[in-house]
């Protein structure tokens, strides 16, 4: 009886939230009707191409633990402004997954403080995802919490905490407001399809997330929710700029919407004279399906209470500094890491507590007119595997 009550309560909650989503879409429609009509069309074309190579030292082939080799990434984007209140953005990308629709959304702007975004977009989470295009980064690979497949031991670790760019279907409400001339406050809240996984999953399945075979739809009809708030302090007179932000997201990744995940993050950006500093910390708590026979499913047995823990936790961070040293040369140093706590599948090479730290130094040389060469060397310090040295080289061009 209690179980039935809980099921009904959960379904009602889910239904309430879905009605909330529907109400938000209707609100956007109403807002669009109240806004002035389209006056003209201003089109802007942008894009980038990046050709890179990942080299793993001390091995003829590291394909068993890394995607070493050539990778080409491309993006093209068209932005159309119909009026001061309505605009559309469409972006197509090509990389390891083939062609992907990275953006297809409509923005309705009522005021600086109130903007509606609906379609397929990057939900506001973290500072790194604000700069989602590869041409905007000074290294080929992403910080470990956002790794999308370039890290060594990517399969054992199942990538980062929220691989970037994270793109999803849904709607977002946000805005920005200045307090005086020093403080900018930004905020956003969204409902999106959410991350995906198997019915009896133990973790998010990032291939499903990007696979059209399951259609580009929410796999469980239960939206994921999240938001971000950030503040920026502009002290240009003192040659300083600081931003601090916090993000959160919650959803269910299995088709039955029984397995939950919660992601949180804080980020810090600072610019002091010539140096840019970035730091982020992300944490994800993921529910696992125990299955009919947990003893054969997991590597470790139950706790002292005789029960198997349904959750595993992973967190990660990066600290990064970048400084221009010559008119065409910028140098970068990054320290990042990942940890994982909790039971693992019986076949996993990880342990109940595993960690990886990575040290990176690199540089970017501008060749002029949108061309840039990126070079970086990385040292991986694994808790469960041999340490590794890797290098990345890329040439990137903006279109």
């Amino acid at each position: 009886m209690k179980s039935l009550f809980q099921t009904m309560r959960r379904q009602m909650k889910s239904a309430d939230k879905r009605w909330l989503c529907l109400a938000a879409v209707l609100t956007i429609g109403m807002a669009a009707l109240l806004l002035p009509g389209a006056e003209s069309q201003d089109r802007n074309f942008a894009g980038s191409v990046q050709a890179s190579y990942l080299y793993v030292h001390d091995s003829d082939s590291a394909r068993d633990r890394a995607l070493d080799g050539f990778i080409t990434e491309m993006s093209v984007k068209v932005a159309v402004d119909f009026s001061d209140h309505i605009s559309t953005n469409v972006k197509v990308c090509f990389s390891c997954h083939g062609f992907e629709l990275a953006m297809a959304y409509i923005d309705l702007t009522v005021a600086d403080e109130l903007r509606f975004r609906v379609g397929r977009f990057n939900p506001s989470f973290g500072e790194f995802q604000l700069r989602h295009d590869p041409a905007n980064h000074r290294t080929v690979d992403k910080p470990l919490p956002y790794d999308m497949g370039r890290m060594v031991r990517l399969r054992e670790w199942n990538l980062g905490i929220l691989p970037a760019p994270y793109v999803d279907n849904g709607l977002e409400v946000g805005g920005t407001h200045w307090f005086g001339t020093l403080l900018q406050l930004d905020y956003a809240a969204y409902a999106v399809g959410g991350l995906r996984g198997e019915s009896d999953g133990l973790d998010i399945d990032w291939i499903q997330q990007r696979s059209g075979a399951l259609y580009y739809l929410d796999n469980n009809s239960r939206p994921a929710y999240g938001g971000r708030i950030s503040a920026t302090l502009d002290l240009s007179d003192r040659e300083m700029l600081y931003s601090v932000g916090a993000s959160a997201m919650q959803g269910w990744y299995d088709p039955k919407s029984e397995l939950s995940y919660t992601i949180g993050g804080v980020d810090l950006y600072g610019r002091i004279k010539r140096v840019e500093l970035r730091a982020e910390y992300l944490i994800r708590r993921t529910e696992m399906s125990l299955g009919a026979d947990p003893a054969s499913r997991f590597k470790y047995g139950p706790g002292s209470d005789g029960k198997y823990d349904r959750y595993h936790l992973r967190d990660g961070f990066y600290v990064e500094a970048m400084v221009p040293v010559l008119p065409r040369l910028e140098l970068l140093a990054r320290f990042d890491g990942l940890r994982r706590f909790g039971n693992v599948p019986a076949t996993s090479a990880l342990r109940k507590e595993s960690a990886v730290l990575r040290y990176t130094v690199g540089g970017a040389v501008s060749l002029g007119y949108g061309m840039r060469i990126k070079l970086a060397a990385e040292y991986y310090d694994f808790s469960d595997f041999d340490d590794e040295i890797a290098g990345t080289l890329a040439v990137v061009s903006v279109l």
Partner: protein
Amino acid sequence: MTTELRRLGRTVLAAGLAIVASGCASQATPRADLRTDVGEVPANMQSDYESFASNCSKCHGLERALAAPVTDNKHWDIYVAKMMRTAGSAIHADEAPHILRFLYWYTDRKMGRETEGAKAAPVTTPQSSRGSSPAHKEAAPAGGAPSVPADAPAPAQPVTSETQGEGTP
């Protein structure tokens, strides 16, 4: 082998910290060293260029703007307005005219419209939800005669924007 790698890792980290320390100690203007594709910037545009370089390089390389296929300055009104709304852009209404003035000048020079851009620099900037007009609609008088000198301080009139878009192209 592992010990050697750890030693290498520490060396790499130390090198990174040295880079940071040298950058913090420098007296150079932030980001202004990245003057790669711009060429010589006139003295009266220096502060405008530095506003552009300082703000725009926070999210993307300066080449993103400099290599953009923009020929009409009114496009910059729309685009800078978008950037003002981008989370954490730190582009305040008071600063947008500086960025626009540089972009006008750069685009005009690229298109062979010598000096027109600097003269037609925005007196006000993109349309505000609070009532100001777009710079390109409130154009300078015919012939491009400026209503303020090209090297005058940025307009004091507050600017906000209406057009909306995602953060970086």
